[in-house]
Structure formats: C-alpha cells, structure tokens
C-alpha cells in the first residue's frame, strides 16, 4: 500500500489514503445533501454548461444516423410516402370535422359550467420539443429534450405525445430539460378508468413497457382492455388524457389488492418529438391537514419517495 512512502522526500502532498478518505467523505456529503435537500440544483445547471458541449457532440452520430435514415426513406419509398400523405390528409379532414364539433361542445360545456358555477376547465398550451438524448443510466427511465429555461420550461410540466402521457419534466437546465418517463420505477400518475370512472394510481415498474395499477382492491371493476385516462385530481396532469391500457388482471384472494398490469399508450420509447404542456390551471389550495399517503401520490413524482 505504501510504495509511495519511499518518495516522501519529494514533497508530493498528502498521502493517497488521506486523499481517498477526503474525497470519499466529500462525495458522501454531496450525495447526502443532493438526495435530502436538493440545494445543488444551481451548481448542477452551472456545471451542465461545461458538460453540454460534450453531450452535443455525442448526439451527432445519432442525428446523422436519423438523417441518413430520412434520406433513405425519401429516396427509396416515395410511393409509400405519397400514400401516407394521402391518408394523413384524409385523417386531417376527418379530424377537422370532429374538431368543429368539439369547439361547439366546449362552448356548450363552458356555458353549462358557468350556469352551475363550477370552475371552468382551462386550456393549456403545448410546446413541441425534440428528444436529444435517451436515458443513459441503467437504473432510470429518462430522456432529455432540446428546450430548457430558454423556452420557459418548468419542473413538473407534463410531457405527452399525440397518443398519451409520456412523462414529466423533472429537471431544467439552461438549454435542456430532463423528462422522467411514466415507466420509471415508482413514478405515480393518478388515473381514472374511462369505462366507469373508477379512480386509481398507476405506477411505473422500471420496465420499458409496463405499468402497474397498485392499491386497487380485488373487488374493483377493472377489466382487460380498459383504457386509463388521467383523472386531473392532482392538478398536475390535465384531465382526460390517455395513459395506459390494462393488459392483465390477476385477482388472488390471498392478497387485498389485485395485480393489474398495463401497457403505456403514449410512445414512451419510440418518438423523437414530444409535447410539453404549460399554463396549467392553478390548483385550489389544499386543506392543511392531509394524510401523507395522498400527498405522495398527488405529487406524482418519484422524488418524494427518495
């Protein structure tokens, strides 16, 4: 261990054991502070300016690969592209008709809500972002997108694609932000079964394509192929956006809760472009006393557990 001892007459500073202890303790301290108090977010975003050129260069091969793929697509499959274009146009026309109906319904709904003196449902705006890096940590389900503080993205905003919820913004850097996917272990989303309005909470399992509906009693009316949509109760997720589809329900009377597995509807792992929802309505203030469990669930974040 102390082969270094013989060189002591050259002044080399503290011994390697001292250095090890110093840096290890310092790291442990940082770990503790970061995990418990999250004081270091500003340091992190300052350091991210140093690291972001590396990340930017590292994303070039992926971008080149995509561009090459696009080029191949446009060169070799013009016919299928024309066909796709046609079908998309048809879809747009169909959607436009439905949208007109929707606008009429919205107006009607607002008027009814006014009559009933219910708070109005707010509109939210969406920002288009592009995924720049996929998750690189084996343990976490995260992606980074190409807009951050510069585009006024904030922690807690909801990320979705054209089909359903994908995740939530958990960290914002000057030019980037980090999205924790709903499949991240213990990430919670409050949902409702579309068929009968049953409320539940869907948790990520850490697997790419699996969610589980936890704490649902054995007797609950959940069936295979049920669609789960956000309930909007937490004030984080707007109500009515599709989240997952139930693929299996196992009811074992030994356990108080049914084991229900779901498949996320949004393309959690296969899109390049995502929407970040902003301007969410302010939540009505919570009563002061509330059970801790519903608090953890309503935050809808893994961080609260850590």
């Amino acid at each position, binding site marked *: 261990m102390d082969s270094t001892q013989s060189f002591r007459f050259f002044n080399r500073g503290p011994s*390697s054991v001292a250095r090890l202890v110093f840096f290890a303790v310092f790291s442990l301290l940082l770990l503790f502070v*970061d995990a418990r108090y999250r004081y270091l977010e500003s340091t992190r975003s300052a350091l991210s300016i140093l*690291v972001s050129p590396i*990340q930017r260069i590292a994303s070039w091969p992926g971008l080149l690969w995509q561009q090459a793929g696009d080029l191949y697509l446009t060169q070799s499959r013009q016919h299928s592209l024309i066909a796709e274009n046609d079908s998309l146009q048809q879809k747009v026309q169909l959607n436009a008709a439905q949208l007109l109906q929707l606008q009429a319904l919205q107006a009607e709904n607002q008027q009814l809500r006014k009559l009933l003196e219910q708070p109005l449902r707010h509109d939210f705006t969406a920002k288009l972002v592009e995924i720049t890096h996929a998750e*690189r940590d*084996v343990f976490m389900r995260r992606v980074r997108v190409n807009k951050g503080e510069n585009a006024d993205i904030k922690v807690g905003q909801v990320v979705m694609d054209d089909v359903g919820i994908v995740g939530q913004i958990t960290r914002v850097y000057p030019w980037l932000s980090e999205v924790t996917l709903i499949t991240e272990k213990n990430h919670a989303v409050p949902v409702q079964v579309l068929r009968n309005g049953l409320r539940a909470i869907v948790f990520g399992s850490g697997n790419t394509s699996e969610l589980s509906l936890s704490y649902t009693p054995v007797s609950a009316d959940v069936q295979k192929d049920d669609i789960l949509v956000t309930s909007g109760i937490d004030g984080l997720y707007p109500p009515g956006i599709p989240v997952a589809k139930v693929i299996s329900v196992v009811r074992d009377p030994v356990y108080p809760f049914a084991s229900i597995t779901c498949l996320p509807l949004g393309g959690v792992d296969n899109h390049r472009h995502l929407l970040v929802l902003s301007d969410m309505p302010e939540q009505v203030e919570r009563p002061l006393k509330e059970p801790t469990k519903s608090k953890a669930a309503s935050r809808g974040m*893994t961080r609260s557990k*850590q």
Partner: protein
Amino acid sequence: MMLARDINSRSVIERPVSNFFIFTSVFIALLINGLPWGGIWLLLRPDFVAVVLLYWCMHKPWRFGIGLSWTVGILADVSDASLFGQHALAYTVLAYGGVVLNHRLQMFDLRQQAIHVFGILSLTYIIYGSVHWMMSGHITWLYFLGCLTSTLLWIPLSIAFLAMRQKRVENE
C-alpha cells in the same frame, strides 16, 4: 498473450506522455459514454471513463490521481443526471485502487493485470450500484454486466495507449 508480454517488456523504459494526450483521452471517454446507448447495449456498455481513469491512475499516478478522478466523476454525474457524488465516489475509490496497484501492475502481463482490474472495477460498480440501491431501494442486476465488458475493454485499450505513446516518442 505472447504479444502482450512482448509489449510489456519493451515498456520498461518510461516514455513521456503529454498532458494533452491524457486529457484528450478522458474527454473522448466522456464522449463515448455520452453516445445514445440504449436497451441491451446500455447494459453491455463498458464504462469507458472508468477504464481510462484507471489506466492513467495506474500508469501516471502523480499526474492523474484521486483528485482529478473525483473531478471527472462530478462531470459524469452532471452529464448522467445521477446524484451529485455518485460517480465521484465510485471514481475516487477506482483511482485509489489504481494508485495503490501502480507498482505491482507494472510487473504483470496484461492477463494478470486484467484480473486485478476486474477486482477494482467490480468494486467501483458495486459502490455505484449500492448508492443507487440505498436511494431508491431497487437494483437492476444486469447492471453488473458492464463490469465484465469494462474489463474486456482494458486489454485492447492498454495495447492501443501503449502503441500511441511509443509513436509519440518516435516522432519526437
């Protein structure tokens, strides 16, 4: 292994390594770690930064030691969005292992080196994994595959670095 022995015996004479070479290699390792790895490739990806840091800590412990490894660890924490100090702690221990084994490893051939390197790297992986386990309470066991691939990377990396260092001398 004959080749490895051959190169090793010739490397008895210390050749100068420029700081530029050391830092470029670390930079490139950070870059390769930052490539968009996914799925099974992410699990199989060797930790390039760890292997390069270990190489320099073992071969040039006075130039690249525990402090610099810790700094690189902090940068890795920022770029991987892991907890502050998670990589840093693992790389500190890694660097210490490299510095301690510095003199012994010079006498071994590559295969014997690889066995020691495997030990140090698995310790590094265990530290990183256990920090994660303490924070979140679950762990992906396949994560430790990276430890094996990193060890496998050690052999070509040592040969390549040695060859590059020799060339440098000849050019001068």
